[in-house]
């Protein structure tokens, strides 16, 4: 029965839903996890790279993280080919704004432009929606550092810390417990790795892209962390995690012992 309302993207089902749009959102929940965290002095984003055969030429630049303008970058989850179209659109919009006003585009306006483009494909017939979610990290003079998440329906929302893709619920609950608004970029980098460590089965420096955006001496600095740096950071995070796990285990064992001994 539901199939009747699946064929065309632009037909509402009797419950008032757009199934194809919902499927598009669902498809991304199986894509590689990406996490974004707002720090007091920057924005941090990290994403899982899909594993590929060693025969494939290594990409020249990150396939997960794209610079949109000097002050905005984005992490992609979903179909990279769909994302490329939207990234072109975003870069064009950013440069057009710069040409018209002589100032960098406010981050939210850029996000809105991309989302308006996405929305069109949930309404016009004969086409499918973009199968992409974006995390946008940016900085502007109006609101400072910002983080936005957008989905295929064209919805977007501002976040302090969030994640998308596989196991994003587990990541989200970890962020909820551990995120603090006073965190620095370095602390956020660690937390981002911790989140990915939890959501991914085997996290290594090879299947991970780590990025930060910071304002240094009035200039926006985009950093895609080098492989070795990521490996070192990852080792520290894993070490801390294991230590924490051991401590928790020991504590659990202790309480178990005390509860068993008391009745006697």
């Amino acid at each position, binding site marked *: 029965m539901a199939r009747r309302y699946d064929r065309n993207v632009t037909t509402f089902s009797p419950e008032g839903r757009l199934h194809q749009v919902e499927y598009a959102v669902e498809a991304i929940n199986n894509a590689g996890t990406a996490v974004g965290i707002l720090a007091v002095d920057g924005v941090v984003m990290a994403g899982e790279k899909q594993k590929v055969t060693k025969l494939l030429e290594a990409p020249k630049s990150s396939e997960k993280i794209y610079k949109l303008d000097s002050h905005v970058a984005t992490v992609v989850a979903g179909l990279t080919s769909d994302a490329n179209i939207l990234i072109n659109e975003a870069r064009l919009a950013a440069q057009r704004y710069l040409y*018209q006003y*002589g100032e960098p585009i*406010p981050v939210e*306006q850029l996000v809105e432009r991309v989302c308006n483009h996405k929305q069109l494909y949930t309404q016009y017939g004969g086409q499918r929606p973009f199968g992409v979610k974006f995390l946008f990290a940016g900085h502007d*003079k*109006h609101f400072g550092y910002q983080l936005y998440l957008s989905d295929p329906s064209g919805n977007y929302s501002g976040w302090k810390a969030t994640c998308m893709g596989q196991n994003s619920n587990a990541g989200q609950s970890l962020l909820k417990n551990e995120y603090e608004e006073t965190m620095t970029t370095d602390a956020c980098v660690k937390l981002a790795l911790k989140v990915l460590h939890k959501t991914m089965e085997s996290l290594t420096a090879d299947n991970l892209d780590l990025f930060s955006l910071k304002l240094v001496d009035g200039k926006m600095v985009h950093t895609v962390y080098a492989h070795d740096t990521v490996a070192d950071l990852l080792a520290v995070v894993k070490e801390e995690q294991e230590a924490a796990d051991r401590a928790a285990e020991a504590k659990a064992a202790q309480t178990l012992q005390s509860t068993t001994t008391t009745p006697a």
Partner: protein
Amino acid sequence: METTIGLVGKGFAIVAADRSAARSIVVFKQDEDKVLVLDKFKLLGSAGVAADSVAFTEYVQKNMALYEINSGLALSTRAASNFIRGELATALRRGPYQTNLLLGGYDAGDGASLYYIDYLASCNKVNFGCHGYASNFVLSILDREWKDGLTEEEGIEIIRKCIAELQVRFLVSLPKFTIKIVDHNGTRDLPQPVLAAA
């Protein structure tokens, strides 16, 4: 014959313009306001063909209002000057607006600024500026009197001197002026300066 004069001081900008509406050798009236309030912190003084000046400055004003409604943010003075310049440059190769402009504004953080824009779509950030025949008379005064960190009183006094000079030396009669100021409180009208009888 239209005259606009502007200058920047410490935390404020003044834009002044004559109040005559005239064509050929005939004056229609003496209460035309050629300094448009673009938004809470921006003034746009125009000099040129009356129809083009009004059409273009209102076009800019309405577009900036639209931007503000759409984005919830106001354009900075620099962004506004760049927008105006772009619109004039586009129009230049089609049907140019024959209007010369002075844009004065105040931005939290950046302070006050003044932009000199002409109908050929040049745009310069200046400390003082003047459009029209009047520049032959008042630029020398502004050159001598303008200094960094002018107070409001000093700024108004310079404008008063400029107007007085025009009324003594300029062949065309410019009996009345609009004088507006913009600072951290927004824009406001200043009274017509009292001039010594020539």
